[in-house]
């Protein structure tokens, strides 16, 4: 299930790739994001955009690699304001980013393990939306749930 235009229902081809230094200016200038993405520079940060519209970043994802624990920690995903709430333009953006993180976790030999330390109030919703499971205070996807996300979104 790739990205989908909500108005016309068409599938949209997208690209996920690493954020480069010059993107941070664009991100700030766009006023599309509520979090301060410059603070994520120290981590692995990825952007997603439509193939025909590289300048228009739809969403961002910050990851932290924990090779000693065979996992990638999902530090932050945020979609631009155009894609938040009931009037969003495109479906599946966050799912695609999360599925991409799962692919990376497989590539690195972590069995697809991606963790998140959610706000307690949102824990149930993250579980039902994305198939996360509880691991102590953290949530994570791995193996079957990670494969489900990859098959669904990529």
């Amino acid at each position, binding site marked *: 299930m790739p990205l989908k235009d909500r108005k016309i229902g068409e599938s949209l081809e997208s690209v996920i790739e690493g954020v480069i230094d010059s993107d941070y200016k664009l991100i700030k200038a766009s006023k599309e994001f*509520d979090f301060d993405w410059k603070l994520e520079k120290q981590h692995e940060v990825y952007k997603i955009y439509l193939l025909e519209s590289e300048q228009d970043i739809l969403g961002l994802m910050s990851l932290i690699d924990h090779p000693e624990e065979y996992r990638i920690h*999902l530090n932050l995903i945020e979609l631009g304001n155009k894609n*938040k709430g009931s009037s969003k333009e495109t479906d599946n953006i*966050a799912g695609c980013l999360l599925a991409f993180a799962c*692919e990376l976790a497989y*590539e690195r030999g972590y069995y697809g393990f991606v963790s998140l330390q959610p*706000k307690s109030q949102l824990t149930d*919703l993250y579980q039902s939306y994305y198939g996360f499971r509880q691991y102590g205070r953290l949530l994570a996807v791995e193996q079957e749930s990670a494969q489900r996300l990859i098959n669904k979104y990529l």
Partner: protein
Amino acid sequence: MQNDTEKVYRKLREKYTDEEIVDSVLFNEELSAKEQREVDEEFRKIRLERLSSMTAKDKLIGDMMQMKILIKKYFRQELYDEQYSFANQLKRYIKLTNRSNKEIAENLDIHPTKLSRIINGRDNPNIELMYRLEKHSDGQLPAHYWWRLHARELEYQIRTDLEKKLNEAGKVTDYLEIRG
């Protein structure tokens, strides 16, 4: 690292429901340094226990998925990479299964010498073998993946084997002179 996620959450909450937030933002809860240390410690213990309790089958499923994802990634790049030759990927596959070449030859109903020649790049695989590998991997590595690995290698050989190209060209007579 963000230093006031709660503030951003409250701001988002003014405009969106929790469902809408979950659909567009995945963020971490900020904890005090002490709390964070405890959470990290507890999680690390759970994670290491989970890793050590993984069965051979769990690991095989994960390793196979890793192989599939790396092959898909290779298909997205344009260049040929020796590491992804049919023979090298077959070697990798056999290693993951933890079975001997002889066992795999039996499983695939192929003569061990033929398998050995393919693994060593001295013989070409056929489509039948690719279908059998798909079945052997329980569908995880489809026949067309094996075909694409082989086709890319053949294309590379065709493009770069200049000696053969010249040799074969020398056997052609009365060719069409249409390039002006």
